[in-house]
């Protein structure tokens, strides 16, 4: 099981979603991906993207200027 960090800071949606999608494409089920963002829209968009693709959002941590979303990769095809 691997852990990948995605730096999507200073990117506006949907770029953080696209970066997440690209990172997850290279992962196996069970792998963890943490996405570092600044656009507040990611707290809606990345979980929505995870729901339609069957991945789990394990945690969303919101600081003053930074948001970190932890994802566990589901079954990929």
């Amino acid at each position, binding site marked *: 099981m691997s852990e990948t960090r995605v730096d999507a800071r*200073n990117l*506006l*949606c*949907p*770029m953080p*979603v*696209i970066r997440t*999608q690209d990172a997850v494409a290279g992962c196996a089920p069970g792998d963890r991906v943490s996405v570092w963002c600044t*656009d*507040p*829209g990611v707290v*809606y*968009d990345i979980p*929505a*993207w995870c*729901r*339609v*693709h069957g991945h789990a959002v394990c945690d969303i941590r919101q600081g003053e200027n930074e948001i970190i979303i932890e994802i566990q990769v589901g079954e990929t095809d």
Partner: protein
Amino acid sequence: MNNPRKAVALISGGLDSLLAARVVMEQGVHVEGINFFTGFCVEGHTHAIREKDRARPKRNNALWSAEQLGIKLHIVDIIEEYKDVVINPKHGYGANLNPCLDCKIFMVNKAHEWLEAHGFDFIITGEVIGQRPMSQRKDTMPVVARDSGAGDRLVRPLCARNLPPTLPELEGWLDRDKLFGFNGRSRKPQMALAAQYGFEDYAQPAGGCCFLTDKQYSVKLEDLWKTRGTREYDLDDIMLLKVGRHLRPRADFKMIVGREEGENRFMEGYRKRFVHMIPVSHVGPLVLLDGEIDDAAIELAARLTARFSKGRDAELVTIEVNNRKGGSHRLDVTPIPADEIPADWYI
């Protein structure tokens, strides 16, 4: 049991593409969505940037559509490849810098490439004859099918019965009688179909999903191209055209003036790329300067910056000027009177 046929649907986030995908899913076809990000998409950006919109719940409508449909959505970054569509549209522009027909051809072509790479059978779009003046006319819809390379694998379920049968209809993968014959600009048939499927709270059509259809945005992009002497651009260029007041006090430099806290915060990310200034004696905007920045440009920009600050009526306003290398100095300036700002400085 036979494997179902597979279709990829162009999902914009609007009602038509949502319905088109659903109509095909009703016929037992496996559908996945694809959404293209050009950099000019209105979707989400203004919410993300502007403070006044922050309290409003924000969603990506394409992802919302996918959730309603229960399908996967693949979001594809086409920023680089899309430049050629914007710069050299074979079929020309619409009312502004919107190359709608070339854009549709390009996106269907990209969907066709995706289809071939993933072993899918056909493409779905939410196009309706007569809905849009450029890309959705009876005479241009065959052009999209032909020039995109999709040919008869392109299905428009909402108006299919007004068009020649496509491969999925001829092969019996789709029952043509269960497709629709919508046409024209009326939204009533789509709204009725949405109600039938139980779709509520879908995105309302609001003059397009692309900044290139916006007159002011197009004027700013034209200005950028003209003053640079080239029609090239990068993502940061086109993002910054969405933000702030843009003023060109001299042919060789432009100011981008943050209008509120959200824009100032967004523009802070560009501080290393531009000479920038901010009032320090009074509350005021972050201002980015783009172009040839000499002492006279700094003096003029500082007076304008003071004008847009809370110190606009003060005798002197102190402005901090920062260069690209991180150095800074302060200037005390008199705010420029409003009647000394010619209207044509505003881009």
